[in-house]
């Protein structure tokens, strides 16, 4: 949390205690750490760097900024889709009661072919069960990346069409020894352990069959 430490330290300076212009003793740094509850390991390099920036006027000065705080977004009509996966491990598909268009997942709230004709028809939920199969329509191997649930390293965000759906979604496909992720490859869903599920798209992925 170096950024946080920097912010607090800058605030400290703004309070009028001009520690930036002088070398801090080891004891002073320890006291700063205690006073502002900043881990010593985070504060030390921060102090050194800030001192360097002040002393070396050729280097560009950077100051920390912070936008907002942790915020929550409503999942709206998708709440049920994600709650069913998080709590019950069950997948649902959107089905239009007017034209029968099927959408896994029902990313749009209302039927796509119908709204093109000016008809407002919200998708209805149809239960698919605890496992869905599908086909890879497009693939990518992203070398930089990793995700909060599936770890770091290479990841494979792919476009997958779930059986019975008229549309497709981007989702991770997990590689498998001896099998290649390619256009046309068959996959099936896999859920992350229930205690780790958060009600987001990362609660599930696909694996090669």
């Amino acid at each position: 949390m170096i950024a946080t430490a920097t912010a607090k330290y800058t605030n400290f300076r703004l309070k009028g205690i001009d520690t930036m212009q002088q070398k801090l003793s080891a004891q002073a740094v320890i006291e700063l750490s205690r006073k502002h509850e900043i881990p010593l390991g985070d504060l030390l390099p921060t102090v050194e760097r800030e001192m360097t920036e002040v002393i070396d006027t050729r280097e560009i000065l950077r100051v920390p900024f912070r936008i907002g705080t942790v915020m929550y977004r409503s999942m709206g009509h998708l709440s049920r889709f994600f709650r069913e996966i998080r709590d019950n491990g069950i997948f649902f598909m959107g089905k239009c009661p007017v034209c029968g268009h099927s959408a896994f997942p029902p990313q749009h709230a209302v039927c796509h072919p119908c709204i093109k004709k000016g008809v407002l028809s919200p998708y209805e939920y149809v239960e698919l069960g605890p496992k869905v199969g599908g086909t890879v329509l497009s693939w990518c191997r992203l070398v930089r990346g990793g995700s909060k649930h599936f770890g770091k390293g290479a990841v494979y965000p792919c476009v997958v069409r779930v059986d019975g759906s008229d549309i497709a979604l981007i989702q991770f496909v997990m590689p498998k020894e001896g099998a290649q992720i390619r256009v046309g490859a068959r996959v099936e869903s896999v859920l992350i352990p229930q205690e780790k599920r958060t009600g987001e798209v990362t609660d599930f992925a696909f694996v090669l069959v």
Partner: protein
Amino acid sequence: MAITGMRGKVGVLGFGMSKFGPGIYDKDLPYLAAIAYTNALENAKIAPDLIDFAVYGHYNPLFRGQIMSDIYVNETLGLELKPTIRIAAGGATGAAAIDTGVTVGLSGRADVILVLGFEKGYDCWNYKSKESVSEVLKGIIFSADTIWEEPLEMTAAANYASTVNTFRAEHGGHPTDEEASLIAVSHQTNSLLIEEAHCYGQKELTVDDVMNSPIIAEPFRRGHNCQISEGAAAMILITEKKAKELKVSDRVVWITGVGASTDTGLVGWRPSLSRYQSGEYALEAAYKSAGIRDPQKELGLVEIHDPFAHVVYMALMEIGIAKDEDEASALLKDGYFFRDGRLPINLSGGLIGLGHPVGATNIAQAGWLFKQLTGQAGKSQVDFSNRPKVGALKGMGGPGDCYCYGQVYEF
């Protein structure tokens, strides 16, 4: 698909840009914009009080932690109290800003329009890794749908790579690694003749250099990738009526064709995952309004949005320059699209060579079309005695690369 015909004409009277490069730390964003602006005024040979509308292109407020940077740019330029608007359309922001500027001119609402794009990605900084790129990528990723795709870290590279991989599966493995590398080398080499370019002063790349560079998102290698740049680019647009009044019509490059199309951002809702239909529609509309029937014959040069070299190969078919991969590969191999070829692509260097300060990029590409067509391109200038003085621009961007803008420039 609706194609809107153009009434009257709007053209480019002047162009100017700042240096494009990584981390221009001694100048803030409004400063870079002011450099591009004054260069454009000087090039157009007009006084600032003639400007009666400003269109600003700025993609991502997260890079600087500043929402609506255009306000501070506008007042730095001394244009307060003029009507202004800010456009954001991902990578296509610059092309979208030009599109808006043309529309403002055609509407009769303004006669002299400033179109100014700018971006400063390196203002975001990761103190732990001591670099900007990871922070830029974090800023970009919030363009993806925040429920469905941002959590999967669908970066621009991942989006483009996905479409390219499907294209390759359907087109016999084209573009090959070598073909894409050839395109990247051509664009980087072109940029070495332009002092403002991100790559200016760098070593000329070879196909081997590119093919030996590491994979970042299969099939893209580092050498196929665009630059992350800072910079600004400005264009002065003028209506036909005003150009006559000021007696400057002979200096104006007319924008005779415009077209735009926006596809779904969630790519799974598209009927095809191997092509950019919005690109086909945008250019078809632009050609129709410009009266172009055979782009390969009627165009003299082209600027294509090239975030990754492979996308240029795909664009050859989208914008009607090659009918299929056989023709595209043959033309590429023959040097048809190189500096000394019949139809040079990205003499500006494109995103790969000139650089990619997002809001400014397509404006700079269009600006170099203007410079080439009017003989102002300096060391980069090509001979037009055997080629039509007509250029086309294709800009694209946004989640799933959904936005596309096509424009035709004639002198």
